[in-house]
């Protein structure tokens, strides 16, 4: 479904990604882990069109989408949820969700479109008419996901969904992502903290300095001593 090969990208002249290969199947949840500055967010932003890759390709269902504008990529069925639970603060919860499906045109029935998401996040239903700036960080993250849900993407990219969110709100968010994937959506989640999303992931990759260093299932990575070494910068041959 999503196939990335040989992807190089960076900010301006700063090279960040150095040849990433990754593919995700429908219904699969892939977790991208790695220490600070490993290039995880850059990877998602390069796939989502916010950063133009300098080399390599991104394919969605075999179709080359490398270097397209972000809005065009979203319209082709790949939706990126940015980090920092970004929503439109002055708009109501309901309008935020409506805008998520705006590009699909027509006059979709709000209930039919947003129902499943609101069922998972009942708090959003209660606050449907409140401006999004009044929500807590965790609620804004739920809103950002609900907004992405109504776009009905085939691939969902989620950048640090647990960052800056109260601990108790993380399980329902992960649960939502799991059910969403069960509908046949390919899901890529970026997290820094290893444990936060490992339970829902089918597979995890660990990035370091713009490269994928380790790949494995949740159970495998939990045991792997190299993971700790990567996170602590103790894995190099020239380390004192």
């Amino acid at each position, binding site marked *: 479904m999503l196939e990335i090969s040989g992807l190089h990208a960076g900010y301006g002249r700063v090279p960040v990604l150095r040849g990433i290969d990754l593919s995700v199947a429908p219904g699969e949840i892939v977790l991208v882990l790695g220490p600070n500055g490993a290039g995880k967010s850059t990877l998602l932003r390069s796939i989502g069109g*916010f950063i133009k890759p300098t080399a390599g390709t991104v394919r969605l269902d075999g179709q080359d989408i490398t270097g397209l504008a972000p809005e065009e990529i979203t319209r082709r069925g790949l939706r990126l949820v*940015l980090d920092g639970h970004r929503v439109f603060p002055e708009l109501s919860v309901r309008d935020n969700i409506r805008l998520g499906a*705006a*590009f699909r045109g027509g006059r979709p029935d709000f209930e039919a479109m947003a129902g499943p998401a609101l069922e998972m996040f009942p708090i959003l239903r209660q606050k449907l008419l409140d401006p999004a700036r009044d929500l807590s960080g965790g609620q804004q993250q739920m809103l950002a996901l609900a907004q*992405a849900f109504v776009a009905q993407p085939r691939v969902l990219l989620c950048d640090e969904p647990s960052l800056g969110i109260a601990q108790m709100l993380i399980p329902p968010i992960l649960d939502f992502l799991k059910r969403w994937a069960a509908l046949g959506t390919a899901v890529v989640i970026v997290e820094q903290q290893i444990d936060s999303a490992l339970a829902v992931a089918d597979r995890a990759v660990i990035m370091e300095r713009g490269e994928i260093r380790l790949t494995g299932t949740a159970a495998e990575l939990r045991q792997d001593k190299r993971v700790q070494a990567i996170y602590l910068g103790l894995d190099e041959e020239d380390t004192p």
Partner: protein
Amino acid sequence: MNDLLIIVVHGIGVGAIFALVGMSFNVVFNASGILNFAQGNMLVLGALFAFLLLPTQPDLLRWFILLPAVAIGLALLLAVQGYVTLLPLRSSVEQHSWLITTLAASVIIGAILLIYQGSAQQSVRSPFTAIRFMGVRIPATYALTTGLALFWFIALHIFHTRVLTGLAISALSQDLDAARAAGLRVRRLQVTAFAISGLIVGSAGFVAAPVMAIANDSGITYVMNGFVAAVVGGLGANLGALVGGVLVGMLSLYAAYEYGGEFQNLVSLALLVVVLMVRPQGLFGRQAARRV
């Protein structure tokens, strides 16, 4: 006492024109960060159409038919101008390009007016009769500009809070990246915003024509006062433009009454400098709402 009332009433009427220009600035600015310098001459074009198309004898039916027609005409023209203005921004990060292209568009419209009518000033007769209010005669046009300013204030509010396209344009100003991630086509929405600003200045020019100087060099004065109105109120906030416009209108009429017409713009400039030095975000500015 009577003089004061005249200053206030006329000030509101004139200020409403500035407020309309200010709101048209805001629509484009919120969607794109561009301030369209041609907006003043677009307003003058709206008035010119009133001069060309309205018969010398009062004809209300014609007036009511032409008002939306002129507004739509200007909307199309501004959509084209907006498209052209946004073109170089695609290929280059040159920050001065929009300053030049919008100013050049303004120069071109002024030049066409100059070729068409020389340096003459045209004026239009209002088809409406004046109203009396507390013993003061108010030209109907001032009542109409005030009404139009209120109409557009409310219409823009509904547009930005109820209509999906309006919501999308608001979304652009609140978080551009999140809007793009949501699949909103930025360019198309920005051109739409230009067109809406055309509806505003087109209708405003048409309605205000009887009190406007329709000349090749009057556009810049409206740009300036419209900008002062928008900045005094807080760039981007339409309520601010409304209040700011009325403030600028009353102050400049007071200056004209007390010192002479040449001092109207000086007072606006002074107001602009004071506001920028003391409270750069304006009376109703919301700095926090914009994610940088």
